[in-house]
C-alpha cells in the first residue's frame, strides 16, 4: 500500500508506540482511536486476535499488535489504546500501547527497510522515517491484516 500522498509529496501519519518502537499509520486509513472496553475473547482464534468488542453497534475485531509484530507480552499497567480501521466493510482495531501525535513527513525522506530488520516487522513495514532521536516504522495496514496468508506461508 502506498501512503496517501498530499499535494506537496508528503504524507500524514498517526504515530503510535508498540513496545518501545514508534510506528506511523497513514492517517487516511485511520477511522478513530478508542479505548477498548468489554473485550470478548474468541476461543480457538489465532493468537493475534485479542478478541471482539462492540463499538457503537459494530462488532470490531481487535488485533494485538504486540503479538502481531512479535514484540513480546504487554507488561505495562497502563490501559492499551486501539486504532480503528476498516477493510472491505469490516471493522478492525489495532491494539497499541500509546497513541502519539500526528506527523506530516516528506515522502522523499522515507527509506527502505534495513535488510536485517526483524522479519516479522519487515513484513508489515512500508519503510522507515528517520526522526530526531527516533526511528518511525511506516505500517502497511493491509499487510497487518493478512493474518491468514501468513499462517499458510509459515
Amino acid at each position, binding site marked *: 500500500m502506498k501512503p496517501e500522498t498530499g499535494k506537496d509529496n508528503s504524507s500524514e501519519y498517526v504515530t503510535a508506540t508498540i513496545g518501545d518502537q514508534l510506528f506511523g499509520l497513514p492517517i487516511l486509513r485511520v477511522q478513530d482511536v478508542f479505548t477498548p472496553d468489554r473485550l470478548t475473547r*474468541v476461543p480457538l482464534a*489465532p493468537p493475534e486476535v485479542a478478541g471482539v468488542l462492540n463499538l457503537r*453497534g459494530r462488532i470490531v*475485531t481487535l488485533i494485538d499488535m504486540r503479538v502481531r509484530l512479535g514484540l513480546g507480552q504487554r507488561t505495562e499497567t497502563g490501559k492499551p489504546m486501539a486504532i480503528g480501521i476498516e477493510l*472491505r466493510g469490516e471493522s*478492525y482495531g489495532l491494539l497499541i500501547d500509546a497513541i502519539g501525535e500526528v506527523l506530516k513527513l516528506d515522502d522523499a525522506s522515507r527509506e527502505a527497510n534495513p535488510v536485517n530488520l526483524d522479519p516479522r516487522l519487515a513484513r508489515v513495514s512500508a519503510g522507515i522515517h528517520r526522526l530526531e532521536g527516533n526511528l518511525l516504522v511506516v505500517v502497511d495496514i493491509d499487510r497487518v491484516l493478512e*493474518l*491468514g496468508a501468513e499462517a499458510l506461508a509459515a
Partner: protein
Amino acid sequence: MDDLLREFLTETNESLDVVDVELVRFEQDPSNAKILDNIFRLVHTIKGTCGFLGLPRLEALAHAAETLMGKFRDGSMPASGESVTLILATIDRIKEILDALERDQQEPAGADGDLIGNLERIFKQGAEAAAPQHTVGTLVPQVLERPLHPGEGSLDELERAFRETKPDPVTPKAAPKAQEVSAEKTDDEKSDSKIAHQSIRVTVDTLDCLMTMVSELVLTRNQLLEIVRRHAESEFKTPLQRLSSVTAELQEGVMKTRMQPIGNAWQKLPRIIRDLAQDLGKQIDLEMHGAETELDRQVLDLIKDPLTHMVRNSADHGLETSEERRAAGKPETGTIRLSAYHEGGHIIIGIADDGRGLDTERIKAKVLANGLATEAEIEKMSEAQIQKFIFSPGFSTATTVTSISGRGVGMDVVRSNIDQIGGTIDVKSVSGVGLSFSIKIPLTLAIVSALIVEAGGDRFAIPQLSVVELVRVRGNTEHRIERIKDTAVLRLRDKLLPLVRMRKLLDLEAGADDDTGNGFIVVTQVGSQTFGIVVDGVFHTEEIVVKPMSSKLRHISMFSGNTILGDGSVIMIVDPNGVAQAMGTAVTPQTIHDPAAEAQRLAASEQVTSLLVFSAGSTQQKAVPLSLITRLEEIDAKKIELSNGRHMLQYRGQLMPLVSMNEAVCIKGEGAQPLLVFSDGGRSMALVVDEIIDIVEDRLDIQVASSNPGVLGSAVIKGQATEIIDVGYFLPLAFEDWFRRKEMTVQFKTRSVLLIDDSPFFRNMLTPVLQAAGYEVSTAAGAHEALALLKQGRRFDVVVTDIEMPDMDGFEFAEAVRSDPRTAKLPVIALSSMLSAEAVERGRQVGFHDYVAKFDRAGLIAALKEQAAEDRAA
C-alpha cells in the same frame, strides 16, 4: 433512469417470466383457452406499453408474437412445437433488448427481421391452411382489423365453439369474430385487475434497509430490557413492555415483507426443462409442490442458482432417454419433482427424479483418481457414504461436458452455497430408481432465538432451533455424568447420550477446575444425531441479531457468527453443526419427519453403530452394540450374593442374576466389578466382564460367523478383530424362559430382510443375529414406517414382523401388504409370543407365510431359509 422506463422494465420482466411458464404449460395443454388468454393478454400489454414509450423494435416483436398467438387463440391454427419454440425465441429476444435498454436506457440498434419473418411465415402457413381464399401478402393488419360479418351467430355460441375446438382449422369466417370477443374481454379484465392491485412496488434496498433498522431496534430494546432488569422498581417498566411488544410486532411485519414464495425461484424452471427436454430428446415432466412456501428473499436469492443447477443436473444426467427408460421398464416420461414445506424454523426443499440414480462405481473410481480416499477406506464405506463424495470440491462424474451441465461447477458449489446460509444438504440414491436431494435451510438469517449459556467464564449463544432440552446435572442424582474411559455419557431415559464439554471443545480449560459434577447439559439435535453439550451455566433465551464473523475468524467451525447482547457485550454464536463434527462423528444432516427422510435415517443407522468394547476372559476384545445395553455399572464385589447356586445382586429393589461371559471370567471376590446391564420388559440381567475398554463408533459388519455359543461372529472394530457378543445367548442363561435358543445355522447368500418390531430391544437384538446368518437387515419401528419404506420402492426379499404393535398390528400390516399389487407376493413372516390356534388361523387368513415364536431364533432362521428355498423354486 426515467421512472416510467424503470417501471416498465420491472413490470415487463415479470410479465415475461410468467409468459415463459405459461407457454410451456400451453404447449402441453393446447386446448386450454384460459392459459392462452393469459399469455395473449400479457404480450398484448407489453406491446401496448412499448408503443406508448416509443420502443419500435420491442413493439414490432411483441406484435408479431401476439399476432401468431391470436391465431392459436381463435383456433384457426394448431399450436405446434415449432411455433411455440419460435415465440419463446421471440421472448428471449425481447429480454435481450430489455437488458440493453436497462443498461443504455435506449433501445439497441438491430433488426429482428429474421424472427418476425419466421413468425409471419408460420402465421401465413396457418392462415393458408385455415383460409386458403385469403392469400394477401400483408395479412397481419387484415386479420386484426377485419370488420365483422353480420349475422354470424351469438357470442356465447361462438365462445363455446372456440373453446371446444381442437387446434384444427375452423371456419375462416368465425376467426375474426372470436378475436374481437376476446379483445373486449381483455379490456374488462384489465380494469378488474387495476382495482384488485392493492399493492405497491418497493425496492429491495428499501426493505433491506428497514430490516437493518429493525435489527438495531431489537438490539436497543434488548439493552433497555437489560437495564430495567437490574432495577427492580422502575417507572420505565410498563412503557418498556409496550415498546418491547411493538418492536416484536414490527420485526415480524418487516420479516413478512421480505418473505417470498419459493415458487419465485422455480419460475424459470419449466422453461429450462422444456428446452432441455427438446435438446436432449427426452420426455420430462416437472412437478412442483409447495411453490407457495415462503422464505426470506435473501435466502431465496442464495438458493436460486443451486436449485436451477440441480434441476439441470437431474434432467441432463439423472433421467434416461425414452428408449433407455422403456428398456428399463419405466414410463417413458421421466419425472423431476420439486417440493418445499416448512418444518420448525426451517424450510425443507426436495429435488427428486426417477432416473438412473448415482453411479457408485464411477464415484469410487473418481474418488480414487482424485486421491480423496484410499481403496481400503472406500472398501469400508457404505454406498451412502460414497455418494456423499459428490459434494467434494471439483467433483463431477459426467464423462462428457455437455452444454447443459458438467461444466466443472458441481455439487460442491451447491453445497458451499447452502452451507453459507447455514443449511444442510443430503443425497439419497437408489440405482435405477432415482436420486433425491433434500435441502434444509433456515427461513431467515437475520434474527434467531438463542439460549445464552456460560462456559469457562464466557458467555455463548446456542441457537434455540437445535436445542431439544436442558438437563441439570448433579453428582448424586439420576442425572449424573458417567465415563467410559474418556468418553463422557449421560443416562437419559434409558439411552446413553454422548456428551461434550464446551470448555474442552473451545479450549477454555485454562484456569478452570475440572468439575463435571455440576452443570447443565444442553441436549442438542443436529439432523438425526443427538448429543449433550456440557456448560457451566444457563442464563435465558434472547432474540439475537446474527452478525457474520469477521473474515479473520470465519475459519473457526465452532461458531456460526456473533451478536451483540442486551448489555452491549459481544458473544459468539455456537454452531451445532460444527460441534457435531468436532465430536468426530460423521453427522449426516437429515430430517426425520417425512417417510423418505426416515428411510434415509434408517439406512444411515445401519452404517455406523455405537459399540461398547470390553474384555472378558481372554485377551481378544469383545463388543456389543451400545444400544442394547441399558446401563453400565461398577459395583462393589462384596455386594454380590450367592443364591440357589447362582450369583445375584440386589439391584433397584430386585434380584438381578449375574451371568459370566465364559468360564474364564471369574466373579471377583472383592473390589469393583464392572457389569453390563440388559433390561427388557421389567427384567434385568447383568453380564460380568473384566474391563470396559471404550465406546467406539464403527460399522458393524460381521465378517466371520462363529459357532461358539455366545459369540455372533468377528468384526473389525477400529482396526482390531473383535468378537461380537450375542446378547440373546446370555439372556436365557439368566432367565430360562427369556427365550429358547438353539444353535443357529449360517447361510451365506445375502438376502434382504425388513424387520418390524416396536421394541428397540428386539430390533437391536435380532439385527445382528440375522446379519450373522447372512442377511442384509433393514429395520422399521412400526407398520406405518415399514409400509412407507415399501411404498418408496425399497425391495426386500422377505419381511419379518411382530404381531403386537401399537397403531397398526401385524395382521393389519400383512393385509395392507397383500392389498398392494406391488407387494402382494412379498413373503411375510410373523413373529409373536401369541401362539394360540386362533392367532395362527387369523395369520393364515391375512397371508402370513410363516409363524414363528418370538424367542425361537433358530426357528426364525429356519423359516427364512425355507422361504428362500421356496423363492428359488418359484
